């Protein structure tokens, strides 16, 4: 019998199980284990909820993530819309320029922000943190929204105009609802990494403000693997929930889009 070509996927499947699925499983295993005895425990989670410092950091991180996401959305939507309009912008290079920073190391971009604040003689702190976050993640919001606006079939807009919609009605009733899938994926692409960043906050605030990612990193670095795993698992759950909400929003919106 001939060897089927589909078996070629098996080595990679084994690799994925060993180095993607298994490590994630290990996080879960460690999170439910006592550091000393190795027995099953919920203690790591109990410790999290009874350590106000960590809990506060967690809630503060969510707040920062939400503020960053909203600011990015407000700034990015008009930019994406202008980029997608051929009246205003004909060159793909401008689009490229907006997307390019996505590919530059987060650390370097953060240090660049530090440099900017140094240059302008502005103090580092919460202001710098907010600016740095928005600066870091803005391209991740512009790109998906631009994509959904760009791909939009112009006949929808022409149909709306043909049916007597004014430009603002066209935008509110057609363009905006149809671009919602892009908005949702932008929100996910900004919210998920902001909630998981580490190292950025300490550099931007001179160690004054700590985010949840840093808490996790410190625990892992200091040998508290079980507690660190529990915190990582909590972050995973938050991220999983966000992406579920995002998926939900996305399908709901695209269904709505289909009805128009």
């Amino acid at each position, binding site marked *: 019998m001939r060897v089927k070509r589909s078996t070629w*996927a098996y080595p*990679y499947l084994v690799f994925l199980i060993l180095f993607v699925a298994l490590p994630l499983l290990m996080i879960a295993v460690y999170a439910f284990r006592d550091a000393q005895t190795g027995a099953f425990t919920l203690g790591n989670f109990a410790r999290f909820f009874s350590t106000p410092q960590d809990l506060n950091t967690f809630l503060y991180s969510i707040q920062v993530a939400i503020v960053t996401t909203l600011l990015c959305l407000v700034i990015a939507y008009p930019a994406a819309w202008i980029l997608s309009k051929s009246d205003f912008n004909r060159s793909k290079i401008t689009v490229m320029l907006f997307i*390019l920073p996505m590919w530059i190391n987060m650390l*370097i971009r953060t240090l660049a922000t530090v440099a900017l604040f140094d*240059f302008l003689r502005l103090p580092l702190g919460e202001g710098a943190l907010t600016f740095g976050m928005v600066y870091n993640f803005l391209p991740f919001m512009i790109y998906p929204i631009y994509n959904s606006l760009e791909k939009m079939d112009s006949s929808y807009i022409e149909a709306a105009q043909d049916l007597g919609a004014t430009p603002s009605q066209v935008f509110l009733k057609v363009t905006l609802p149809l671009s919602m899938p892009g908005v949702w994926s932008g929100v996910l692409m900004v919210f998920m990494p902001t909630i998981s960043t580490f190292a950025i906050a300490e550099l931007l605030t001179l160690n004054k403000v700590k985010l949840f990612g840093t808490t996790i990193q410190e625990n892992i670095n200091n040998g508290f693997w079980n507690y660190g795993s529990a915190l990582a698992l909590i972050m995973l759950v938050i991220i999983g929930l966000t992406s579920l909400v995002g998926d939900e929003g996305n399908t709901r919106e695209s269904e709505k889009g289909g009805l128009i």
Partner: protein
Amino acid sequence: MIKKLIARGYLVVLLVILYAPILIIAVFSFTEAKVLGNWTGFSTKLYESLFTGGLGNSMVRAIENTVSIGLLSAACSTVLGTVAAVGIHNMRRGKGRRAITFLNDIPMLNPDIITGISLFILFVAVGVTQGYATVLLAHISFCTPYVVLTVMPRLRSMNPNIYEAALDLGATPSQALWKVIIPQIRSSMLSGFILAFTLSIDDFAVTLFTKGNGGLETLSTYIYADARKGGLTPELRPLMTLIFLAVLALLTIINIRSARSKNNNR
């Protein structure tokens, strides 16, 4: 007309803000002043001391590590990812295929910190000493999915009868692969390789967790350690400028390649 100006102006302001920090670093990498923003005349001394000065040695080693890990992990990812893509492409739609594409998506969706910690925990649990090899493995694990995603569309756009045509003309399955399939996906394999290389040299979080404490540094962990110690030391300015230019060059290559392959497909 006014609308147009406002719209263009908005884009320009955003771009200026986006690029100002990098530009400032680039400009001030050509002066000697310790404090950023203090222009003390044009000089390439920072570039010279970058490669020869006190930090030189450890930094050159960090650059070597970054490049060698980048090349090795990109090569391994390309081989593994291409073989996997051919396999997945030939899988029937069903549970197996869905499972592997789901697993393939995880490293791309997972935040770096989770990928890093999960691999760290795995290596700790198995009792592996962390160092060069573990960093390499970790990089392969998050680069390969991108190679798979780069090669798959090319396979899909290929005429499905081409492989059969080769068999029909008397090629054995392996001859058909080498003489017909590989020549056609070669360019997307190369794109995958470049992408994997870019991702690898750009990585910070995963490397930080898997490098162990044997003193292994890549450029990004080196910068991090340095920045944490003393803020922004002057030597980092030329270094960051160079990294920015390298990424810019790689991205330009990737984009030109993908634009060209799109034109060819037409």
